[in-house]
């Protein structure tokens, strides 16, 4: 009995069902659904509110997620739109996200899409200043929180919607 079949398709279908159920009562994740054409489950889009008590709180964020062929053995590729979010671990110009959980070495097939989105939302509240993508912002975060908050708010307000 050899399971040569593609795990990704059946697993994504199962996740899709579960996500639909769980999102009905989810406070912070407004949307998480397939965005690919032709009913493909390989591209997803998420929308969530910024975490409370952070400069992100009053804003909503869009995240695009690509599910690789080898999922769940490989992590999904997550990316914000360019010039969308200002954060020490997110590159402003490209939207690239730097999060341990999403790296090949630390990923586990036990994680699922909803957890990934929740983890990225948590990252907004708790930046990892040791492995920043934006060195200057990470520095500002560790020396002057108030200035950091001001800068983040300023840039989020100025983004084109």
């Amino acid at each position, binding site marked *: 009995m050899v*399971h040569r079949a593609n795990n990704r398709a*059946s697993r994504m279908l199962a996740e899709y069902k579960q996500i639909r159920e769980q999102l009905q009562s989810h406070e912070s994740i407004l949307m998480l659904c397939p965005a690919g054409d032709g009913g493909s489950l390989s591209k997803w889009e998420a929308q969530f509110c910024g975490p409370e008590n952070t400069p992100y709180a009053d804003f909503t964020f869009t995240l695009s997620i690509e599910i690789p062929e080898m999922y769940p053995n490989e992590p999904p590729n997550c990316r914000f739109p360019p010039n969308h979010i200002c954060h020490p671990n997110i590159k402003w110009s490209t939207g690239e996200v730097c999060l341990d959980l999403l790296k090949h070495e630390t990923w586990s097939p036990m994680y699922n899409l909803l957890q990934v989105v929740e983890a990225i939302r948590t990252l907004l509240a708790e930046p990892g200043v040791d492995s920043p993508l934006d060195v200057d912002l990470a520095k500002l975060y560790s020396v002057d929180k108030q200035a950091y908050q001001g800068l983040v708010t300023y840039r989020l307000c100025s983004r084109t919607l």
Partner: protein
Amino acid sequence: MTGQVSKECPICWDSMADNVAKLIPCQHEFHLSCIRKWYHSRISDRTCPNCRVEIRELIDMDHNVNINLTLQLDLIFDGLVDNIGAQLMNMNIRDEQKIYQEQNIVLESETQEVRLMLIQCHICGDSDAEVDRCCKHCQNMYHAGCLRQLSAEVNDNTESSGGHCAYCHEQLIPLNIGTRTRIWNPVDTDIYRGMIRNRNSILTEILYESSQSAAVGSSDINQTCNLEMNDIDHSWDCMERNRKRKEIAYQEKCQIQRHVRGILDDYYYGCRKITREQYTEINRRVSRELYDLSGGIYQNLNMDYDEQARRLIIKEVEKLT
């Protein structure tokens, strides 16, 4: 369906009625095929996906056999063939003490400690009876079809040396699982005389055709086997040479880039005339140009790389302002 509560595999989320593996020591359960694929995709990682505990062995619950994941291998494959092997399909049975003398290992080994290990294609990660190549040196195993698929990525070249392992480049030997002679099934369109056809690959198709025409009018399996080995010889030879060529090219590139970075660092750290993004962009362009100028070879004696790099960088910086 049966009224019995079956758990779900945390990797594929399908029901885990059969094909179950339990990890030791943490007791977490997954589909055997899922956990194998996971371990295959993480060459050095043998921890539990759930609790990250280091895994020593896993139990194939369907057959109630332990599979040791830490075993350092030193196997001789000629003696491994037997009936239980056919039943378990995925495993080798080995009697440590008597492996040299034993022809019929199974009967003897029932009273002795039997060690099992995975038979798994090191290219696709699947475990099945089609795994039919093994490396003498490192015991990595392959599907002949997978080797051929890999070979399709390098262009064909028909010089021949030994059939080589992808990892240590030692000689490959045929590996028989289940029965001593493989059962050929010409009706199956994907398998022809034991070779797995990969329809996506043109080279595979050519190899397939050539072996087919050579085998016409002959039921001699040996002949096909020989052909098969030659195909692999070719593939690996090509791949090996391609790999070496790339490696050399890469080293030359690094040496050239070192000069460029040396000069660019002055601009970036010294006088802060350029931003980080500009640094990256200029580095890329100048390195590429120098690389073209050198014809792909690092010619330190004929060319003053520092001077050339400086000249090109100044030009690039001027463009910025």
